[in-house]
């Protein structure tokens, strides 16, 4: 518990978390405004469209999360951290917990803000009636949190700010889509790519529901499992490596 407080102090006494949070909110809510403004009258009935910009907000969150770890390596404070807390797993898990919680909060605020703005701009049927619609909005925070866990794991493994951010952004924004281009097996591999699966969890998009290998709940479990595996690997490496 103390360690969570420690990581909270660390996170909120630097500037980047504030800026990243602001950027993530602006991006997601901004996209909702654009979509609501551009859609012809009567056509905006799918709640998931209001979350159109979540992918970009997620990218910003992942940058925040990766930086929370890589700046510790860059400025040497990771050594101060491990000197104060020789149980490296506990220290890193506390950091992951704090950052994931922050990402969850930002995600929820962004998603509901986006939905709220769209509802105000286009009061057509954007009410949250079905479970799927609730998941589509409230799930954004959960996806943000899990994405931040993935970014932290990558940050721990790579340790280098620019490298970790590039990898995380390029992967999340481009690589998975490009995998589809691989002949014959591309589409099958794409079905199992973690961020695409997260997208299915939120929007049920991609292949028609009947053909998709995972249900909405299954998709969440898969994405969470992926994040967990990556985190465990990074913790093992961090423990064995020199600080």
């Amino acid at each position, binding site marked *: 518990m*103390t*360690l969570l*407080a*420690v990581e909270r*102090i*660390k996170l909120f*006494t*630097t*500037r980047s978390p504030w800026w990243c949070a602001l950027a993530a909110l602006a991006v997601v809510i901004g996209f909702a405004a654009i979509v609501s403004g551009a859609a012809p009258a009567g056509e905006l009935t799918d709640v998931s469209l209001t979350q159109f910009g979540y992918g970009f907000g997620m990218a910003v969150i992942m940058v925040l999360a990766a930086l929370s770890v890589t*700046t*510790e390596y860059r*400025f*040497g*404070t990771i*050594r*101060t*951290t*491990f*000197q*104060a*807390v*020789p*149980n490296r797993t506990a220290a890193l898990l506390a950091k992951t917990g704090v950052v994931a919680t922050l990402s969850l909060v930002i995600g929820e605020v962004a998603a509901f803000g986006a939905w709220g703005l769209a509802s105000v701009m286009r009061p057509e049927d954007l009410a949250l009636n079905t479970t799927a619609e609730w998941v589509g909005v409230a799930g954004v925070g959960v996806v943000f949190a899990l994405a931040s866990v993935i970014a932290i794991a990558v940050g721990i493994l790579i340790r280098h700010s620019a490298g970790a951010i590039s990898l995380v952004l390029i992967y999340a924004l481009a690589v998975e889509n490009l995998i589809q281009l691989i002949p014959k097996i591309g589409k099958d591999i794409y079905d199992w790519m973690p961020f695409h699966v997260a997208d299915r969890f939120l929007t049920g998009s991609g292949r028609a529901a009947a053909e998709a290998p995972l249900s909405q709940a299954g998709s969440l479990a898969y994405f969470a499992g992926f994040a967990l595996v990556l985190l465990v690997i990074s913790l093992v490496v961090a423990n*064995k490596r*020199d*600080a």
Partner: protein
Amino acid sequence: MIEAVGLTKRYGKTLAVNDLSFSVAAGEVTGFLGPNGAGKSTTMRMILGLDNPTSGQVRIGGKLYRELKEPLRTVGALLDAKWVHPNRSARAHLRWMAKSNKIAESRVDEVLETVGLTSVAGKRAGGFSLGMSQRLGIAAALLGDPEVLLFDEPVNGLDPEGILWIRKFMHRLAEEGRTVFVSSHLLSEMALTASHLVVIGKGRLISQSSTEDFVSRAAENTVKVRSPQLPALRAALTQASAQVTDADRALVVSGLDSEKIGEIAAANQIVLHELSPQTGSLEQAFMQITGDSVEYHTGLETEAAEVVTAAQ
């Protein structure tokens, strides 16, 4: 209080620390001396559990670092003053450290007061001068009021007042019964600060003794003699199996102490104008003893040799 046994650290092909064993006692300031690349910082990181030794162990008060509960209360260390996030304020930096070991927050203000940084506690650490960063690092080391203190080049960047302050401070800490382990390159400073020395070179232990012993053992203890009858004196001394070197209108004699030389001169009825023992300096002792172990030679070897012969 600090016991290292067979410490070895290999980075790929480089053997940074090679079977190093030493002990550091409480109640005194122990200096950790060695040329660049000798393995001092690596050893200190191994003491703190930051680097894993390839083999061997180092224990603090009988325990490994990772076995210590709330380690900052037992060991305080300043390894590198730059290990601070530049956008964080000095106070925030100390706050999170204190919190991590359940140290009261009032202690943060106390240590800031001790090192004289209270007025800039709220400023971002990136704007600090080298001396201020160094003092922040010292404050961090003192946070848990620890029994064992490790300092890696603490006087780096301090002005003369600061250097004097930290020297007195380390003496006071040692007098309180704490274990103080300091590494430094400033030999003259080390001579004034440390009462015991652990000297390493190329990852190996070269010597472990009190500062006085180190200096007297290593430096040539010679006697400078001036006389109007130098050739006769030289002959007499050489016969007494002393090594005699010619210096500027004098002789430098090693192997005999000044009493013996005086007696030999008297026995041969040789007048002496000067009979003065030359004691070595720490710098000479250091250069002499670690001469072979310097990892990164500059092109200044001849000048370095001149330092050794400077007193003669």
